[in-house]
């Protein structure tokens, strides 16, 4: 599933989990499970962000190295 997971989808799911936990609508029975999932999603998002950042920074560096800019 993670192969097809997008940042948007992961973030949306994360927000839902955060909201559920915030509103205390999550049961103790599934709390650990939800927190686990949140941790997976956060890590996924962070990795995705870092990867994107690196990619974007590379593009920016290339642009800055060109004399015309």
């Amino acid at each position, binding site marked *: 599933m993670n192969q097809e997971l997008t940042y948007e989808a992961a973030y949306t799911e994360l927000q839902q989990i955060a909201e559920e936990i*915030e509103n205390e609508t999550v049961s103790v029975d599934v*709390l650990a499970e939800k927190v686990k999932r949140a941790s997976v999603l956060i890590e996924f998002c962070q990795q995705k962000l870092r990867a994107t950042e690196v990619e974007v920074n590379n593009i920016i560096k290339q642009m800055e190295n060109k004399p015309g800019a």
Partner: protein
Amino acid sequence: MTAFETIKLSALTGKIQQALSNVFGEETFWVVADVTNHAFYAQKGYHYFDLVEKDTNSSAIVAKVAAVAWGNGSIRIREFEYVTGQQFKNDIHVLVKVSVNYHQVHGLQITLLDIDTSFTIGMLEQQKQQTLLRLLAECSDYIRKVGDRYVTRNNQLSLPAVIQKLAVITSGNSAGFQDFRHTLEHNRFAYAFQVDTYFTVVQGESKAELVQQRLIDVYNSGVAYDAVVIIRGGGAQTDFLLFDTFLLGRAVAKFPIPIITGIGHQKNETITDMMAHSPVKTPTKAAELIIAHNKAFEDGVSALQHTILIRAQQLFSSHYQALSQLNAAVINQTRTILQGQREMLHDYHNVVSHGSRSVLQHHQRELLTLSGAILARPRAVIAGKQNDLVNMTANIRSFNRLYMQNRRGQLAHYDTLFKLMSPVNILKRGFAIVYAGDKIINSALPVAAGSPITVRLHDASLEATVTAKTPHDESGTDI
């Protein structure tokens, strides 16, 4: 040989000279006239020409005089040309200050001392206004006047984002064109341009048709030019009248590619400038305008680049922050939930332990109250019953006493009654009982006079005979 007197020609011309000098002397005249047969000797700075007056109807020459300008007059003419932009030449209408001279060799001569520039400017301005009115009248499809400005098809066109492909109409290798080209090619941004030249003679009003033809050539070339640049070749200041012509004004106004003019004049802008997309003063300024235009575009691109880079980085930081906040929210809230549940369980624990004790205590109290009620009451009940019994005894005794009294009273009543009724007691009170024979009589009816009767009193009986009988009235017996 003839005998009449002769004089030398020089004596005659001397007399003419004398006569004219006597009449005109040093007097000068402001004369309005047209110029013809003009010739200019640049080396000497001499102008030779004729001043003529034409009949306003037939154009036939009604007066003509040869004139010359040199020295100050020639200088005034140069100034005139510079100020008006009008070349001193044939067929111009001028106001000139002249003196009348007679030269023994050259004959009658008018010397131009001064030329009135404002007269000619006024004339030219009048012509220009007429041309503009004509343009508005005849080309209303693509020329309108809005306030002081002329709105034309050409100046309503928008310049492309970048001006790179140019058609330049100019006189070949004129100084202006060289300036233009140099400025373009040596721009400090290294912008590349493609410049196609359309050479023409840009001098003299009559060349307006040529310029128009070059515009048509540009159009027919099929090249998608970004703009057309019209540059005057430079040099003399007297080439402007071409740009005030109706022909060129119309062609520029109507032209479908934006036209930049760099005519290089000092005075009021020409009709061509008014009709063009972007008029500037000089060819160099035209080139600078184009470079600035492209630079503005590149600046725009650079600004967007800057925005995109900054925003992309901001986007990352805001996403990092959002993630971090979510992470913190999940962690904190999870701990809060667990803590909350722990407290709730603790509360329930307290409720159950205290509550159950309190339930028991409550029942204990209730039981005590109830048993107290049950135990206290029987004694009171018994005491009450005992009281009832005592009352009962007392009642019976008092009831009995009353009972006895009543009975005794009854008996006493009868005792009295019978004592009163006893016959012995009646006789004692003076009553008597009358017997007729053995019978007690209670009526005189059966007793006749002379009958024997016995009268019994309480202490003895008397034997008697009835002597008389008198009946009583009813009322009289009521004792």
